[in-house]
């Protein structure tokens, strides 16, 4: 289930005086089962990029292939693409509308033409996957807490059983605990189902721990694309475009400057602890016999 973007361009208001190049010659290949973080600040083109992947926006140039098929071919089933590439928008709780959580989650599968029973099964499954407590299934979605609302909304997309799940800033506006809970849940989902997941975020620190690969967007272009370690090695350049590497990257570089023999590639606190202990001449617990 791969997606390939081949020299994709997108220009807003193409014929107007205020034409903006929102995507500029983007080439990407997303293989099956990968967990990808797409990072960039507001206006970098990251949201525009993901809206292309399920056909909500149409590129003004270039091609997009879904499992080898060009999605801009006339006979390509666009509606089907939308169910196979699930897109969770920013602040997804703003699209909840049903009287209870469960009916809201059923909305997607019903739109796909599933019968009532099948849709309900899918909804149950999705709600379980996002960790929604059972007693909230028949509550009004508007009475849930911020984090739970967001879970309900994510379940609404998940219930369509997509093969690829794209989440646009799923943690925006949540408090730290809420952020961590959502991210963990997404990671768990990815591990359990082996689904391809694209996580759009402006926070390196948030995604560093979870993703296999980071794509950095800047001014509509792909600026870096690689494993978190490789991307964070460019922390100075990232800084210049208004993004920041995780704090540990800075700490390790500061230590390196002071003559410590640390591995600057560590991206999480746990890894940093080990390399610092190592540099201090202490054997990390993990390696003790």
């Amino acid at each position, binding site marked *: 289930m791969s997606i390939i973007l081949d020299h994709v361009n997108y220009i807003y208001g193409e014929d107007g005086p205020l034409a903006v190049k929102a995507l500029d010659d983007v080439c990407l290949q997303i293989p099956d089962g990968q967990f990808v973080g797409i990072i960039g*600040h*507001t*206006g970098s083109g990251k949201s525009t990029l993901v809206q292309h992947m399920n056909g909500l926006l149409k590129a003004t140039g270039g091609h997009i292939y879904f499992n080898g098929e060009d999605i801009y071919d006339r006979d390509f089933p666009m509606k089907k693409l939308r169910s196979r590439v699930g897109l969770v928008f920013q602040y997804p709780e703003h699209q909840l509308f049903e009287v209870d959580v469960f009916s809201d989650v059923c909305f997607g599968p019903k739109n796909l033409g599933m019968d009532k029973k099948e849709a309900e099964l899918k909804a149950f499954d999705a709600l379980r996957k996002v960790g929604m407590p059972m007693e909230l299934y028949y509550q009004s979605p508007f009475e849930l*807490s*911020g*984090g739970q609302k967001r879970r309900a909304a994510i379940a609404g997309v998940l219930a369509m059983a997509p093969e690829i799940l794209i989440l646009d800033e799923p943690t*925006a*506006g*949540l*408090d*730290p*605990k*809420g*952020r*961590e809970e959502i991210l963990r849940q997404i990671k768990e989902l990815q591990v359990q189902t082996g689904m391809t997941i694209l996580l759009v975020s*402006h*926070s390196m*620190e948030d995604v560093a721990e979870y993703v296999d690969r980071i794509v950095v967007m800047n001014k509509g272009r792909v600026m870096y694309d690689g494993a978190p370690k490789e991307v964070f090695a460019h922390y100075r350049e990232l800084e210049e475009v*208004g*993004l*920041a590497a*995780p*704090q*540990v990257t*800075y*700490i390790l570089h*500061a*230590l390196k*400057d*002071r*003559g*410590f023999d640390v591995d600057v590639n560590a991206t999480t*606190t746990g890894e*940093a*602890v080990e390399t*610092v*202990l190592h540099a*201090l001449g*202490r054997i990390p*617990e993990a390696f003790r016999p």
Partner: protein
Amino acid sequence: MGIIRTKDLVYEYVRRDEEGNVEGFTTAVDKVDLDVQPGEFIAILGHNGSGKSTLAKHINAILNPTEGSVWVDGMDTSEEEHIWDIRQRAGMVFQNPDNQIIGQVVEEDVGFGPENMGVTTKEIWERVEESLKAVGMYEYRRHSPNKLSGGQKQRVSIAGVLAMHPKCIVLDEPTAMLDPKGRREVIRAVRALNEVEGITVVLITHYMEETIHADRVFVMDSGKIAMEGTPRQIFSQVERLQELRLDVPQVTLLAHELRRKGVGLPEGILTVEELADALAGSR
């Protein structure tokens, strides 16, 4: 007496079920005592639902205490005749940048407060100019707010409050909806207000790293003040902070973990440089 003081402040609201019957009471703020001195930079930390925003709304007399009292610059907020003086003296900036800008042009929005206060036209223009300059938005004065970034919108909102010449300014999660760049802009503007203009600042947030420049930090949990102290004192209690559902900055967490592993480091490390220096010294 401090510029903002609360005594035994309690705020309860009635919970109702779907038919509108009373289900019970929720205590959002529970016996809070606060005493903020003029010129102080106070940060109030807490997770969503900890009561920090409810507390903030009392300072601007948007909410009235169920029990206890709140004084702003010596005036009791529950006395109707002081309400407009209090709102002028304790300005407030809210979370959503879109929902608090009234004007359709940046400068008109900043002038909204002074207009309401009946300031003369000439002085409104002076105030608008100085306020926009203070937050670094003067060159955008003729722009439409819709075209600005989140961080810029929040700076306009801050200027709007500043133009009312308040003695203190309460910011209710001003950065919650912004990206890292916007957050930095806003925090920089807030620090400038405090340091350059000497305005008392009450910053409400759930980002710990935004509080490291505060004079005092309060951590709220279930409507109560759970911790109080300088940023260093607060940051040194990593486990307690995690219990309170807060996200400890990586640098503090790393220092804490290293200490646990027996590395001789002081508690409450706040910045990258501090940690690197401390480690270099411990060798």
